[in-house]
């Protein structure tokens, strides 16, 4: 996907993004509501009309070759798509006749733990059960590419974990998965590569390792008293007076060197540090930085 633009009237929902998803990987599109995630997926699905840029999905142009593409692609919409009056089994049997890929309703009922609910009207299912049925339809016949729009929104932690298992199974079977989410831990647990979208643009893109390495790590501790003269560090230092001393926060790309210097300095003065913490940059930090508009758009 190169320089994708999508307009709705005067509103530009997607403002020039480049995305590349490799075969066999799980790719997560992170972002707040209104960041343009669903709009981007709709272009991949062949539903959204782009106003600029070029897009290839499995080598096909989704806008003009949707027919050929959908045989190889399974889609889970963000919500809905069900006839409430049909039962779970009827829904899958209809799907069996609608989709070109072959699969068996029984297998999917079992895989997604819906066998006991097979004769229940879809309108009477819980949110989690509906989401499972939704996923079952998206992975029907094991398509080459599976697009999932917020597959775990509204699920309890247990169902979320089981959905993750199902997504990982797809990858083990060699399928490519593109998903959107606003849960950071979901992206961390599943995705090989991540793009963080904000206001219609991709702010950060890459593997989790690359993204985290690109941002400074940090450490913090409470130093008794006013802390006086601190040792020289390569990163930035913040001080904040607290009840029993001063909280020091250091953000640095040289975590080990700066932390060693800091600990040596404290040891020389016989200081007892409290609440000492050191961590690499987290996805959460980067995400919040993107939302606050700190991260430069690439």
């Amino acid at each position, binding site marked *: 996907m190169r320089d994708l633009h999508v307009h709705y009237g005067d509103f530009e929902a997607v403002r020039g993004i480049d995305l590349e998803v490799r075969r066999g990987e799980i790719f997560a599109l992170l972002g707040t509501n209104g960041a343009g995630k669903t709009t981007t997926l709709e272009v991949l699905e062949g*539903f959204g009309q782009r106003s600029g840029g070029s897009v290839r999905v499995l080598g096909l142009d989704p806008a003009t070759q949707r*027919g050929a593409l*959908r045989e190889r*692609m399974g889609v889970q919409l963000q*919500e809905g*798509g069900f006839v409430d009056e049909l039962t779970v089994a009827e829904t899958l049997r209809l799907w069996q*006749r609608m989709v070109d890929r072959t699969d068996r309703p029984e297998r999917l009922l079992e895989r997604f733990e819906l066998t006991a609910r097979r004769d229940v009207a879809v309108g009477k299912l819980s949110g989690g059960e509906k989401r499972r049925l939704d996923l079952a339809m998206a992975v029907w016949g094991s398509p080459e590419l599976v697009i999932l729009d917020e597959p775990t929104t509204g699920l309890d932690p247990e169902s979320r974990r089981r959905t993750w298992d199902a997504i990982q199974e797809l990858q083990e079977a060699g399928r490519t998965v593109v998903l959107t989410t606003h849960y950071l831990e979901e992206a961390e647990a599943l995705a090989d590569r991540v793009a963080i979208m904000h206001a219609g643009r991709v702010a950060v893109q890459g593997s989790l390792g690359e993204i985290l390495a690109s941002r400074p790590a940090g450490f913090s501790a409470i130093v008794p008293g006013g802390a006086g003269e601190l040792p020289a560090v390569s990163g930035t230092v913040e001080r904040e007076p607290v009840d029993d001393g001063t909280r020091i926060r250091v953000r640095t790309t040289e975590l080990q060197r700066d932390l060693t210097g800091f600990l040596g300095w404290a040891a020389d003065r016989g200081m007892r540090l409290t609440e000492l913490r050191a961590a690499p940059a987290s996805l959460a930090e980067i995400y919040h930085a993107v939302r606050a508009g700190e991260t430069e758009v690439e």
Partner: protein
Amino acid sequence: MSDAGRVLALAGTELRLVLRNKTVAVSSIVVPLAVGVFWAFSFGASTQPGMTAMAVALQLSIVLAMGIYVTATQTVVGRRHNRVLKRLRTSGISDTGLLVATVAPAVVIGLVQLGIFGIIHAVIGSPWPVDPFPLVLALLGGLALVVTAALATTVVTPSPERSQITTLPLTFLLLAAAAALAVVPSQGWWQALVAVPGAPIGRLTQLAYEGGTWAAGPVGLPALLPAVAALLVWPVVFGYLAARRFRWDPRH
């Protein structure tokens, strides 16, 4: 599976759903049927062809309007609202096939209702049309009118609830125009009324029962022609609107 197979599978499911939903079953099946049967006994038993024409024109229009037009609009808007259309577009069915299958149950139900009226007329001994050709045209043109009108109406109907309002004007017009045209004189300025959507149905039914289909009408052309022209224009207009503006997704 071929697209035809998919259309049949989906249309069959949709038909079962109409029968399963009591509200839809009453408004789409019971009401038009009851009113049509009432008209059959009120006007159809008369030996005057004009009265039978009136009954048949009313029956045609109530089935086309309530049985088909309203039901088809509600079904398409409802399926779009719940994103069923959007999901099915990710399956193998073609876009045309998807619309055909969604609208087909309403058309099938309408044809069955008309069949029932036909049987009732035969049983109570209503006069037969002297020329069935205009009646067949009225039926085919009417079907084209209400199906395209239903798709065009979905464009201005944001939610299933709203379809109860957006389908009212044309429903009313269809019934009023067909009834009026079955009785108004076929001379003079009255003929301009035939341009109202649905009015040709009344005019053609009148010709079927009273004859004169090929008699010289305005400017010496067969009497049938203005009605046929009007019958073609509206489906083309509605079809054009639907093709240009139809939306699959409730969001945008």
